[in-house]
């Protein structure tokens, strides 16, 4: 590990503190590292954590109003439960099926058969009701949720347990119309197509460091304090009803908009507050599509990132990085 030629070590020991963790949502702090690291993590979560999504559709019969390509695209975008995706093979380098992408190591088969009977009612073809998987581990996420609910494993923190569970609408069929197809889901990453991205949103922000100059603040009247507090578009500050001191209620609500600083200057009190971004401390917000849990997403992202770094290191053995290291140290 120690590399004398590279000179100074940039190794740091980041710390993570989880603030909130639900199935599809996570909020955590990442400290003692650089923006490059935080951003790498974010980008890997969005584009390089593998999931399973429908990739090939063979239509046997389609008399709906949407044409085949349209339907295939819609099917592809349905999130499938992909907890096993990390251990699956990419079909392009699957030996078992010779890159054909149709064996159980690299693919899951789906079937859909729906026909609107003569009842005269429009039939809604949805991901929960009609899309049938051949592998119970890989199925549309809302089917999974229904199953969990049936088992009573409802996430107690899930606020929308009573929400809309009709699934994802694929197409509506009118009387006499029919849709029959076979679909193959494969492992992939968001970089190739957004349908494989497990992330709905991944964001991070620098943790703000807000320091109020209380001495200067006390020179303001209550009205002035009030108007200063209200100048922030988000609720960052408040006035203590007892002490009438300005306090920070939610530092992370600050959006680096500089409004309070401008306000202070306009009031003739520059330096009323000092706000800095802590450059080695990040607050992450992660939401997933449901294909994998937020926890899996973060952990898999770290795994993928590590694999990528390993790949760099392997290259390094070829000597490329030695030259680079020498170059960096000015050798």
């Amino acid at each position: 590990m120690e590399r004398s030629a590279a000179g100074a070590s940039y190794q740091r020991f980041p710390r993570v503190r989880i603030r909130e963790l639900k199935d599809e949502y996570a909020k955590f702090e990442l400290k003692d590292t650089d923006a490059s690291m935080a951003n790498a993590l974010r980008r890997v979560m969005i584009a390089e954590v593998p999931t399973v999504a429908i990739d090939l559709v063979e239509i046997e019969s389609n008399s709906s109003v949407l044409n085949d390509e349209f339907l295939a695209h819609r099917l592809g975008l349905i999130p499938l439960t992909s907890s096993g995706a990390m251990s699956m093979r990419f079909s392009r380098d699957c030996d078992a099926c010779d890159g054909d992408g149709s064996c159980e190591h690299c693919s899951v088969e789906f079937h859909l058969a729906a026909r609107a009977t003569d009842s005269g009612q429009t039939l809604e073809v949805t991901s929960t009701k009609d899309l049938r998987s051949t592998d119970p581990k890989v199925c549309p996420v809302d089917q999974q949720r229904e199953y969990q609910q049936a088992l009573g494993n409802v996430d107690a923190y899930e606020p929308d347990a009573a929400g809309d569970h009709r699934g994802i609408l694929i197409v509506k069929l009118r009387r006499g119309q029919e849709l029959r197809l076979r679909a193959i889901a494969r492992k992939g990453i968001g970089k190739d197509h957004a349908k494989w991205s497990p992330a709905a949103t991944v964001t991070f922000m620098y943790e703000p460091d807000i320091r109020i100059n209380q001495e200067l603040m006390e020179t303001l009247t209550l009205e002035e304090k009030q108007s200063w507090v209200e100048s922030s578009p988000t609720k960052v500050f408040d006035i203590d009803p007892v002490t009438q001191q300005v306090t920070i209620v939610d530092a992370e609500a600050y959006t680096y908009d500089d409004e309070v600083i401008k306000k202070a200057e306009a009031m003739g009190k520059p330096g009323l507050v000092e706000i800095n971004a802590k450059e080695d401390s990040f607050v992450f917000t992660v939401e997933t599509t449901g294909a994998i849990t937020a926890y899996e997403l973060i952990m898999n992202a770290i795994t993928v990132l590590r694999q990528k770094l390993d790949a760099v290191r392997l290259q390094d053995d070829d000597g490329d990085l030695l030259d680079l290291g020498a170059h960096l140290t000015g050798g």
Partner: protein
Amino acid sequence: MPPATSAPDAPVAEGDAEAPPVPTYRSLAAPVSNPVDKFALLPAFLKVRGLVKEHIDSFNYFITKGIKNIVRANNRIEARSDPGIYLEYKNIYIGEPSVQVDFRVETITPHFCRLTDRTYSAPVIVDVEYTVGKTHTQHRKPSFTIGYMPIMLRSYACVLNGKDEAELARYGECPLDPGGYFIVKGAEKVILIQEQLSKNRIIIDTDNKGRVIASVTSSTHEVKSKTVICMEKEKIYLQLNQFTKAIPIIVVMKAMGIETDQEVVQMVGRDPRYADLLYLSIQECATERIYTQQQALQYMDDKVTYAGAGNIKDGRSKLILRDVFIAHVPVNNGNFQPKCIYTAVMLRRMLDAILNSDTFDDKDYVGNKRLELSGQLVSLLFEDLFKTMNTYAVDRMNKNSDMARSSPLDFSQLIMQQDVITSGLERAISTGNWDIKRFKMHRKGVSQVLSRLSYMASLGYMTRITPQFEKTRKTSGPRALQPSQWGMLCPCDTPEGEACGLTKNLALMTHVTTDQEEGPLRNLCFSLGVEDLSLLSGEEIHAPGSFLVMFNGLILGKHRQPQKFANNMRTFRRSGKIGEFVSVFVNEKQHCIHIASDGGRVCRPLIIADKGRARVKEHHMKELRDGIRSFDDFLRDGLIEYLDVNEENNALIALYEHVDQDGVQRSSITHIEIEPMTLLGVVAGLIPYPHHNQSPRNTYQCAMGKQAMGNIAYNQLFRADSLLYLLVYAQRPLLTTKTIELVGYDKLGAGQNATVAVMSYSGYDIEDAIVMNKSSLDRGFGRCIAMKKYTVTSEKYGDGISDRIAKPQRNKDGVLIKQNMRV
């Protein structure tokens, strides 16, 4: 009629109809209570008339009236040898759209024709009476088909006429499709609106040599001719194709029977300045020693270009004067007086223009333009073909009787022998070449394939106006925006480049008139105090204070109280006694009143105002909203009227009723706009806040709005266009304009609402481009479907074997099993 009682809740001061209150400072300064919202009139108007009403109206006029007039004028054909053998057309009408299949008649729908490459046409049916054989026994044959005529969609003859949305869906038709086009051999063809100069009107202009000319293009059912009177070296000449040289105008007058110079001068007008200008012309005539009508005709006979059969020149010029020279002025029983007066009026206008250059006519003025629509164009074509068919029949009959065959032939067997009408109409509409030798008409590109790139593109096509001739590139005059276009033609919608400003588009509420019967109107004019021309001497015609009354370009007579006469005519129009599109225009400069009922004039509806107060009140609008009053009721009750471009010159039109117009007395306002946004056309109406844009931007958008991909019609998946681009996730615009809702663009949207971030990036900005997020494309943003048509023939062989169309079959490796299959 809806109850016109004074509604108790009407906010505006009622009762001003009886006794207008004397305006005081206080009453004028008082704030006006809330203005009447007249927007609801616009959807009501479009509901009654539809988006392409001018096309459909014009075609309807042709199939209900025009075609009958044509046949009535040519209703009898006779054998040369025996006039007792004849055929007479008693009636003509258009049947239901149908095809003949194995002697069976099957009705057809437009969509069926689109899919099967057929022509959507209906039989032209006549009732005939004819004689047979030497005995001349009379026969009658009702419902005899002489040919098939392509039918305009949504016209009276179309199966879609008056159908509601559900019925249209059953016919496979899109309810938002405006109609107004034809389907010929499966292709949708629009006959574009053609713009041309008014027929039968005097135009004073200068020619390319700078000479002052007065020209008239005469057009009647029989003849079309152009008469030019020009001034050269201060002498006035007549130019006519039938003469080799220009004829001095005084000679022409003498040839028509005005032998004394005094009479000529009196007819032109007694102003000595006119006499001064005429002096040299009169002198020239005298030096030629022409004093009598006989001498004049002799002189002209020598200059006739084509001497006619037998090369006899004698008397030719008199015929030319009668039939060609200002041909639209009739000569009854050899009475040349109307022509003389007309010539004198032409001279007078010309001399006026020389004395005062303000009185030149503007060729680009929209009031001097006429729009020719599909009905008129098809009518010309049909007239020619009908005559051709009859000539064929007569020729055959003559040939047959010359050979003296025993078996008696009759005309009813001959008129349908060739497919003259069917193939002639079909060929013209499908190629767009209108070649009518009879009318010296050779036009190309009259009909074009309806663009189905997007819904807007097809709508835009239907409102397009193409110029008739002169693509003279340099002149800017015809390309410039004309003030008289206001409200009639869209100021924004014109292409860039070659046809810029020449190709125009109709505004939203524009109506193009169709011909109206002249007889009753003429009689009405006389009973309203017009003094008949034939009773007037040349001296009296131009008596000061009296105005000439011109009716569709003809001089009817004069009137001593022009304003009163005009007001009377307008009252009749507002009460519905005469057609709503009759225009009454008092021309103070020319001391003329023009009454027009001819077709092709552009006009638009306006709210009538009495001393600046709109006649449309809140209670009228409430009745409209409640559905007990229609747009036509507004017309019938004299609240709204149509004004054409000429009559607009006698009106003062306010944009809004309650807004103070700068420097304009409110009491002088005669009309109020229904909705100012209607001055734009359909395509320009899509632009939100167009008045905040630099003007060429609006013009660019008019061209680009048609390129937006989206949905083209409700039946788009059942159509078989050769190439069709559809957007997968088309959206309705977040910001809609009133026009968008009126034309149904919100139901057949094109494009998607994109979230765009605009920012400066390091100062090196990109222009006219966007950087896109790949994931959005993956997720379906801007995703489109291209559909292509492939034609194959499916054959049936014997023994129940037939071709079958199936999808390509592949083996396990995805390779086509049969290589000759097309994917």
